[in-house]
């Protein structure tokens, strides 16, 4: 299977979301291809996290459609979308503090894939190993910042997703740690997963992604390779303001 295959696995058409009078998403057309790493960027409040929340089923859209592997999944709830293969991590890390790290990962294996406890534990250990999360029997409170980020990714990855949204999975990490997670992201792509990476650090986006989608005010204002997008006038305006 070609890594940069043209096959679209996830697509949104005219996706919109209002919160009362606030328009958070305003007609987003977006596509994610098999085996690609896509960067989703935009200034604060652009609608990136809302977009992930709508696509993953946390919020229902006000308008538009979400097509996953050719099927309309727009109004399916989050747990069903997870089982179908749409996984995501959270911007604000949310480890389940009453479970240890391994049990955190097991939740994804048990419910995202319907495995029994023993099998789920085996899968969780394998994913922890893949991510380099050592000694996963530890309580979550003993994990380092990097390990908590890995835990978030592990819980999503163990569901064997087709597409994976990483919402600022590298925020708050130092340079070495960021490099490590970037390597992990590439290895996940090698497994055939399509990744959509939300990140504020531009050198991560430039090094990691093949294609970038820029959101501003709930709309896609630019799309293309990073170098192109970074020089786009509208993008510069969105980040720096009208005055430039």
């Amino acid at each position, binding site marked *: 299977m070609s890594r940069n295959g043209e096959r679209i696995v996830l697509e949104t058409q005219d996706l919109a979301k209002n919160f009362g009078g606030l328009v958070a998403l305003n007609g987003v057309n977006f596509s994610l291809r098999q085996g690609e790493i896509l960067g989703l960027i935009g200034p604060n409040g652009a609608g990136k996290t809302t977009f992930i929340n709508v696509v*993953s*089923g*946390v919020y229902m859209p006000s308008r538009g459609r979400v097509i996953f592997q050719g099927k309309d999944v727009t109004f399916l*709830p*989050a*747990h069903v979308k*997870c*089982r179908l293969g749409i*996984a*995501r991590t*959270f911007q604000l890390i*949310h480890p*389940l*503090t*009453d*479970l240890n790290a391994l*049990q955190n990962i*097991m*939740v*994804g294996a*048990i*419910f*995202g*894939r319907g495995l*029994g*406890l023993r099998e789920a534990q085996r899968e969780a250990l394998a994913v922890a190993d893949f991510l380099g999360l050592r000694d996963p029997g530890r309580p979550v409170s003993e994990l380092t910042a990097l390990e908590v980020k890995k835990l978030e990714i592990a*819980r*999503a990855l163990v*569901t064997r997703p087709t597409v994976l949204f990483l919402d600022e999975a590298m925020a708050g990490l130092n340079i070495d740690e960021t490099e490590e997670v970037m390597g992990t992201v590439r290895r996940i792509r090698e497994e055939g997963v399509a990744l959509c990476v939300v990140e504020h650090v531009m050198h991560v986006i430039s090094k990691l992604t093949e294609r970038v989608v820029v959101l501003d005010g709930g709309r896609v204002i630019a799309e293309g390779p990073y170098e192109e997008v970074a020089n786009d006038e509208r993008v510069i305006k969105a980040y720096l303001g009208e005055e430039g």
Partner: protein
Amino acid sequence: MRHLRYVALAAALTAAILFPFYSGLYLRQVAIIILIYMGLALSWDMLLRSGQLSFGISGFFGLGAYAAVLLQLNTGTPPLVTILFGGVVAFVVAFLLGIAVLRLRGMYFAIVTLALSTIFMVVAKNLPSLTGGVAGKMLPSVVFGGDSVKTYWLALGVALLTVLASELFQRTRVFYALTSIRDNELVAKSSGVDVFRYLVLAFAVTSALQGLIGGTYAQIYGFVAPEETFSFTFLLLPMAMALLGGVYSTEGPVLGALLLGALGEYLKLHLPYGHRLVYGVIVVIVMLGMPRGIVGAVRTLAWRVGRKGGGR
């Protein structure tokens, strides 16, 4: 270590079963009441593990009690079968109500369950032709003709059933579902947990246990009456027991029920009017010092000691 646990468990179980042979009538009566409260405390905790605080205990307890008594009076069904019926009625009612109210969370869910308890009581009061109104209904005789040994075993059996259900909740995927829902519902959903289904299931099963216990209670004492059967004592005391012993475990509510039950009885003998006040104060003090109850405090201590010994 594991073997030791099983041996201790088997010993405790044997002691509990043989208890009537080395106790008198008074102690047996006290034990029966403690077992009743133990089941309620444990079933309340089982739902709390999903983060949902229910004040519906006394409601479903009373519902089961009424169902058992009315079935026997109207159809002559054997007492033990009517107890099961109490559980079934509570299950069905909780299942249907759960579908309606489990969109609510936190305080809103808690308040609705409190209202349910009250509504059940009001209904019982206002349907005199069926429920006997404010006077309630009497059974022609109590279960086993009042044989305190058999009655004790009945109460023990129901309490053990609750323990078994609680352990099933702790050792199966239900544990992962409820704990993840309690810790972060958004993460649970996004990891594939069907949150609504598990909440309805937990609410229906724990209410069924409360109905079963209510049916048992009504058969043991031979009557139902709105103010007595739907008394908030069946709500507040089990909660206090679970909190004292330690929530989110089987051991905690069991231990809490034994301690607070025995203490309550002791205080009742020595302070006939002030005993509730005294054990209320004890619960407050313990909660301030040990938010996860006795079991939680012991676990934390054991963990710290184990770490010092093993780590350095």
